[in-house]
């Protein structure tokens, strides 16, 4: 297998390796990046840069970069504390809502809660920039839900989301995490999904049955969000190449 990408990698091996190293946390890269480049060049000279050598190198960087990010995340007690506090707080407030409101819909509440918690988890790992857009997005999600009767817990979840986004932003700022495009795309997809859920709830509450074209609009929105994700990821890789 000798694709164009591989030819480009073998033409500028150190440049390619340096680009791969950007997957590591910034602090790790600053401390060990040059040493790793030196070891890479020694290894390259011994292997003649075969396809196996490159496959091994890509696997090595990707797997260990992820490990280093996880180590940093685990070591950041402030962030871990904020995440746990935010999720516990929103869970507690959900339970309180259930106790106060006799007709509280536990099943859909649980689904929404699990989705929100998974989204927050994804943010913690992937978030990097566009903080204000993300905060606005989360507030919008919360507000839409408030309008459709499922509100108080959604509002608190929004607040929890806000705290987590701020904390993950601080973490990402320290570590130079590169996959912000992915996080933005996921936010768009999640927003569209929540809008669809909110609309379904609106139908249940009002007895209004939507025509297929209206439902298609939401599916279209979700599809567009996924396309946006692909476009943002492509832009991000271009920026990385240029940088």
């Amino acid at each position, binding site marked *: 297998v000798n694709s164009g990408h591989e030819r480009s990698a073998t033409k500028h091996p150190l440049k390619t390796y340096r680009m791969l190293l950007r997957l590591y946390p910034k602090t790790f890269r600053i401390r060990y990046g040059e040493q790793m480049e*030196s070891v890479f060049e020694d*290894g390259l000279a011994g292997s003649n840069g075969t396809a196996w050598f490159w496959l091994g190198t890509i696997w090595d960087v990707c797997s260990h970069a992820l*490990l280093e990010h996880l180590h940093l995340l685990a070591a950041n007690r402030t962030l871990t504390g904020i995440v746990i506090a935010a999720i516990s707080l929103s869970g507690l407030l959900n339970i309180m809502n259930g106790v106060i409101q006799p007709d509280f819909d536990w099943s859909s509440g649980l689904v929404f809660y699990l989705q929100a918690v998974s989204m927050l988890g994804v943010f913690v790992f992937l978030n990097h920039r566009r903080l204000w857009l993300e905060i606005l997005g989360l507030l919008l999600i919360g507000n839409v839900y408030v309008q459709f009767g499922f509100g108080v817990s959604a509002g608190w979840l929004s607040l929890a989301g806000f705290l987590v986004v701020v904390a993950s932003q601080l973490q990402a700022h320290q570590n130079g995490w590169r996959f912000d495009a992915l996080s933005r795309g996921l936010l768009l997809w999640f927003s569209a999904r929540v809008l669809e859920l909110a609309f379904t709830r609106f139908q249940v509450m009002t007895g209004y049955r939507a025509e297929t074209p209206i439902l298609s609009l939401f599916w279209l929105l979700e599809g567009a969000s996924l396309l946006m994700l692909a476009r943002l990821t492509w832009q991000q890789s271009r920026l990385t190449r240029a940088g």
Partner: protein
Amino acid sequence: MNEPTLTPAVFHILLSLSDQNRHGYNIMQDVLERTDGKIRLSPGTLYGTIKRLLETELILELPEQPDETDQRRRYYQLTKLGRSTAKAEAQRLEELVRLARSKKLLPNHRGTP
């Protein structure tokens, strides 16, 4: 409670630094030669492990670099704590081998089938 065991990568790096100070690639080559090519440390494993060994003060980075051919290289040295940790691990492994011999999982004399 027993002492925590070392991972193979940690133990091999400590062993490698037990006789002389080395830089990263030199450690990789030493481990490869010593294990007859069975253990090949990748740069990711090597520097991830070195980072944790520095944090736990089992090794230290030499302030002056003897290698003038490549300024990017950094040399590492075993600390007292690192040496005693490696020694404790070697004794633990020796004890395990002794137990295996007593259960006849291994021959009693080296070279005996």
